């Protein structure tokens, strides 16, 4: 078994792990610190190469996807419960690995430049390599418990990286918030695993899928509950509606982190999990519709908030939540191909957008507010065009990557709506289109604000190299360049952006057939509700044309209209934008304050819980401890009661003894005779 070529893939997670250890060692001394970046980049790149080497082996000789399980070592085995460190390699894994290691390498290269000169340089790369280890383990896991290990591992790395600038209390609070909200999701996930083991006596995917294949379509209620529990975990990790609050605050971390973790890879873990366990989700009739509804609701909700935000990174954060909503919609309508395709393309253009935003922040010394910058195209032409391509892809401009993937999702939703005659999916498709319009609008609102219009800017307060650095006073012992002019970033940082831009533009066209074959060959192919985008039911038509062709036209029109309105309001006639904002002041204020969700959470959950905690502490000290002390006091009370009898007088004792004897004798006489 060990001679199989596929087993080379077992090394993929352990290279970054090794790099994490090496970078950890580099942290200790200033001289070694510079060494961290190359080690990290090399490790992730090597993982990427290994992925490509293992790629052909997931197909059998006539091209159909097949899965391999390669065992590394025994992890947990107790009383029939087995969860080993072994990997499940199939086309879906390959897609995810390409995304993770590919985007990972590019972001690492960018970060080498971006983080140069930072005091925690080696610590940053140690955390990034640990993240890649956790993400690859998550993606390649062969059983639910190993998936859970990767799951919480990425949660830990996001905690470490969000709280990278641990001097800032806001960063520490954001990191804590991220970890705890993820943990809430993970609880659902863990309970899902328990129920799965309880029902199917196994947690390994290979065995699970065999058992699921033989399951009757009408599963028993406990089996139907499993997807809802797993869904909780997915929504927690992928920042969907109830548990999305942590992602916008996660922007406290350095920008490469936001790009890699909070845009491209980690947040897609939820999508991957549902795709991987799709046979399980198909079992219960209500699971997938719930996923679809939550996905669309989140997309709409996040898009509206993004409209009125002024911080660049927060806009992109809400945009990510919105795009993830799309992916969940795709999964909800059993079109895993569309969902994973959108995941792939989104990883490219969102990483691009974040990194270009990083370049803007980098050159404006940490300035992030839209209102304090405009007309930067003269100062930073390359970044301007790179962000332009990213925005096009995000807005879904025809023939860009975003266009293909978003269109596929909306088409499949509409098709399910029309063929299945269920109004739910039609409504979801229409909502999806409206969100596409909003997305186009807020993306280009940002772009026109930043790059178009008169060139004026206010430098951010962080002086020195790299973006939102430590507050001054903390003597960072690196040379401080006092730039007062925004400048183009060096080529080391722009090179990866070019690759990402190429991906954002061309990935859609190149990959939309390739992704279909990959998903069909993996565990994520829909078995029961086979409506498959390219499967049967070609005959659905809309406006006389073939459905997919029609959808292409509609979404391109929406994208162009969106871009035009954004151009009008935020480039040509900014005054009009202010007038509209003034007219709808109430709505704008609500959206700007993110529907006051954070304040709601704080007052409804955090504060009362803390009060209950305080109540328990007082209860513990007063009642339980008090009770124990009073029980301890009882003997002393007896003593105090008996003490008067010992007052020292001889006759007193005599009387005591006499009465004692008399009482005893009388009792004996009375009771017994």
């Amino acid at each position, binding site marked *: 078994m060990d001679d199989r070529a596929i087993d080379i893939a077992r090394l993929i997670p352990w290279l970054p792990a090794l790099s994490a250890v090496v970078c950890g060692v580099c942290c200790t001394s200033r001289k070694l610190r510079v060494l961290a970046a190359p080690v990290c980049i090399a490790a992730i790149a090597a993982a990427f190469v290994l992925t490509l080497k293992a790629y052909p082996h997931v197909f059998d000789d006539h091209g159909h996807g097949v899965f391999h399980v390669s065992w590394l070592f025994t992890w947990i085995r107790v009383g029939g419960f087995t969860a080993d460190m072994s990997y499940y390699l199939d086309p879906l894994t390959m897609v995810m690995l390409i995304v993770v290691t590919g985007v990972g390498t590019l972001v690492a290269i960018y970060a080498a430049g971006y983080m140069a000169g930072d005091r925690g340089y080696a610590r940053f790369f140690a955390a990034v390599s640990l993240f890649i280890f956790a993400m690859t383990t998550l993606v390649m896991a062969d059983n639910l418990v190993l998936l859970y290990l990767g799951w919480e591992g990425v949660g830990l790395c996001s905690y470490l990286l969000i709280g990278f600038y641990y001097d800032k209390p806001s960063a520490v609070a954001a990191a804590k918030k991220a970890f705890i909200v993820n943990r809430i999701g993970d609880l659902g996930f863990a309970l899902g695993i328990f129920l799965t083991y309880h029902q199917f006596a196994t947690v390994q995917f290979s065995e699970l899928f065999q058992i699921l294949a033989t399951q009757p379509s009408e599963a028993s209620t406990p089996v139907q509950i499993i997807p809802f529990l797993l869904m909780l975990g997915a929504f927690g990790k992928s920042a969907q509606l109830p548990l999305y609050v942590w992602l916008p605050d996660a922007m406290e971390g350095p920008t490469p982190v936001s790009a890699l973790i909070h845009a491209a890879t980690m947040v897609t873990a939820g999508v991957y999990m549902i795709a991987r366990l799709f046979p399980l989700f198909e079992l219960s009739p209500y699971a997938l519709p719930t996923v679809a509804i939550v996905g669309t609701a989140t997309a709409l909700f996040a898009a509206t908030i993004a409209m009125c935000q002024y911080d660049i990174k927060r806009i992109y954060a809400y945009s990510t939540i919105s795009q993830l909503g799309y992916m969940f919609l795709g999964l909800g309508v059993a079109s895993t191909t569309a969902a994973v395709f959108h995941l792939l393309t989104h990883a490219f253009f969102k990483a691009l957008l974040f990194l270009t935003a990083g370049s803007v922040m980098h050159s404006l010394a940490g300035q992030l507010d839209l209102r304090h910058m405009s007309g930067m195209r003269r100062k930073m032409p390359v970044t301007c065009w790179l962000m332009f391509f990213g925005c096009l892809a995000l807005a879904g401009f025809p023939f860009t990557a975003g266009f293909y993937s978003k269109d596929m999702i909306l088409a499949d939703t509409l098709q399910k709506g029309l063929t299945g005659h269920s109004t739910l999916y039609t409504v979801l498709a229409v909502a999806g289109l409206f969100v596409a319009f909003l997305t186009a609008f807020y993306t280009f609102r940002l772009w026109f604000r930043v790059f178009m219009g008169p060139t004026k800017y206010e430098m951010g307060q962080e002086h020195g190299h790299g973006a939102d650095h430590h507050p001054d006073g903390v003597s960072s012992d690196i040379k401080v360049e006092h730039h007062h002019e925004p400048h183009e970033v060096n080529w080391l940082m722009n090179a990866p952006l070019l690759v990402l831009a190429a991906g954002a533009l061309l990935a859609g066209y190149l990959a939309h057939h390739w992704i279909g074959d990959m998903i069909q060959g993996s565990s994520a192919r829909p078995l029961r509700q086979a409506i498959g985008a390219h499967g049967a039911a070609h005959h659905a038509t809309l406006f006389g044309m073939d459905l997919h062709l029609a959808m292409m036209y509609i979404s391109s029109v929406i994208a162009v209209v969106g871009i035009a309105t954004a151009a009008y309001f935020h480039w040509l006639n900014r005054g009009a934008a202010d007038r509209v904002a003034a007219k709808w002041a109430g709505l704008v204020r609500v959206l700007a304050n993110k529907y006051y969700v954070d304040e709601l959470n704080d007052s409804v959950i955090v504060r009362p819980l803390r009060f209950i905690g305080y109540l328990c502490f007082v209860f513990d000290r007063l009642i339980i401890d008090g009770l124990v002390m009073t029980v301890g006091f009882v*003997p*002393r009370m*007896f*003593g*105090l009661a*008996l*003490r008067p*009898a*010992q007052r*020292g007088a*001889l006759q*007193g*004792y*005599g009387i*005591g*003894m*006499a009465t*004692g*004897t008399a*009482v*005893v*004798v009388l009792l*004996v*006489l009375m*009771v*017994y*005779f």
Partner: protein
Amino acid sequence: MNPMLDKLSTLWPEMTLLAGACVCMLAGLSGSAVVRRSPRWIAAVSLLLAGLCVATSSVAEPRHTGAALVGVAGLAVYVKMAIVAVGLLLLLIASQVPDRLRQTQDAEAATGRGGVFDPAGVMRGEFFAFFLLSLCGAMLCAGAEDLVWLFLALELTSLPTYVMVATSRDRAGAQESAVKYFFLGAMAAAVFLYGFALIYGATGSTQYDQIAAFVHAQSASGQALPPLFIVGLVLAVVGVSFKIAAVPMHFYAADVYQGAAGPVTAFLAFVPKTAGFVSLIGLLGPACQANAEQLQPVIWLLWIMAVLSMTVGNTLGLLQHNVKRVLAYSSIAHSGYMLVGLIAAVAAATTPGAVTAGEHLGNGVAALLFYLVAYGLATLGAFAVLGCVTTDQGDEAQTYDDIAGLGQRHPLLGVIMLISVLSLVGLPPMVGFLGKIYLFGSAIQHGYIWLVIIAVLNSAISAVYYLRIIGACYFAKPNDQTQVAVSPAVQLGALVAAVGAVMLGVAGGRLVDAARDAAAPPDAAVVETAPLPDGDAESWSPQWADTSVKW
């Protein structure tokens, strides 16, 4: 041979002590100072001689004593040997008491008027004489087979102690405790004497075996025991319980233990208590011919006395600031624990087909005897350490801050106090724990679950004031006003007691077997059954008491 003569043959140990006492008296009055200082050696020699007599005294040929609770011969040997052993340790500790009295020194010093020595002032001889006499009385209690003999023995035990308490310290406290001890003792004596009289009245004889025959006849014929006998027995038990400071008669204990000097209090804590318990065993022996429900009032009385003694001892002990009063209340509490053993013994004796010799844990009397030695060693150690510390006014250590920081100032005394106190609490490695297993095991054996639960909770309460003593020794800052004057003899005595407590705890097997043999019931002693090999008795099925939970 004339029964009286062979009776005398077993009294050699007592006679040696008596002789020793007289020689001490005389030596005390002799002209030369050296001879006047010699009584403590004379006492030691006579004790050793007595020990020798006990060891060699022929216990082999048992006399048929009819229906005593236990074979008198076996019990007597064990008790006498225990008294000799603990007596020797007490002697070591008490050897300083007479010298500390100012009167004795002044009387010894050359008086201004040309060196005339005032014999009345010299106490040294008398103290040791009374010491030996009291021990002799305790030994007599062990051998008693007759109410009159028992009465005399009890009086012989207590009268010398009144004098020892009165002359132990020059303080008013000693005199006050002596007067209380004397008068209350006299009253208690009157009570139990009246009890004896009623028993005699009901049965017509004062001999244990005749009383046993009478009771046996009564219970065999099915009638209830005559009320006169029951009331007599109750009065006797309550009267004798003055010696062991059980509840109705416990009032004197605290003041007397506080007033008297440390070593004398140690003496009071062990010798009268041993005499008291042995007499109770003797007294209840004949009564046990009756069956359980006929003896219900007596068992119920013992149950009340045990529970009240434990509770009063422990709860009042919590409130004390004076270490000696704490140890006094702890001795009341320990009497309560030992009464648990007595109850188990009576329950065993009154149930038909009672337990045979091979049986250990079920044997209340053996547990009682074992615990007596364990308790003796522990209190002896504690009081010895107290005796070593003198406050700046020249008085003995009384309160907690007198012995503050003892562990740091004198590590050996600290460790001895620690071992003694831990043994009193009943913490495992010490002999006290083994004693508690024996006592509570035998009580549970006969269904007294609730009694054991109360006893266990009481020993938990007792931990509070014992911890205060350890806390004072180890946690408080050393108190430099007190001097720690340690004479070699006292230190040796305390050390032997502590080592004994630990060694017996760890290797207590010997003592357990000795106690079991001592407590062998009469019929077993008469019917020469081969003593069961240790431990792995062959499978025989003892007729167990019914397993119903009594109270």
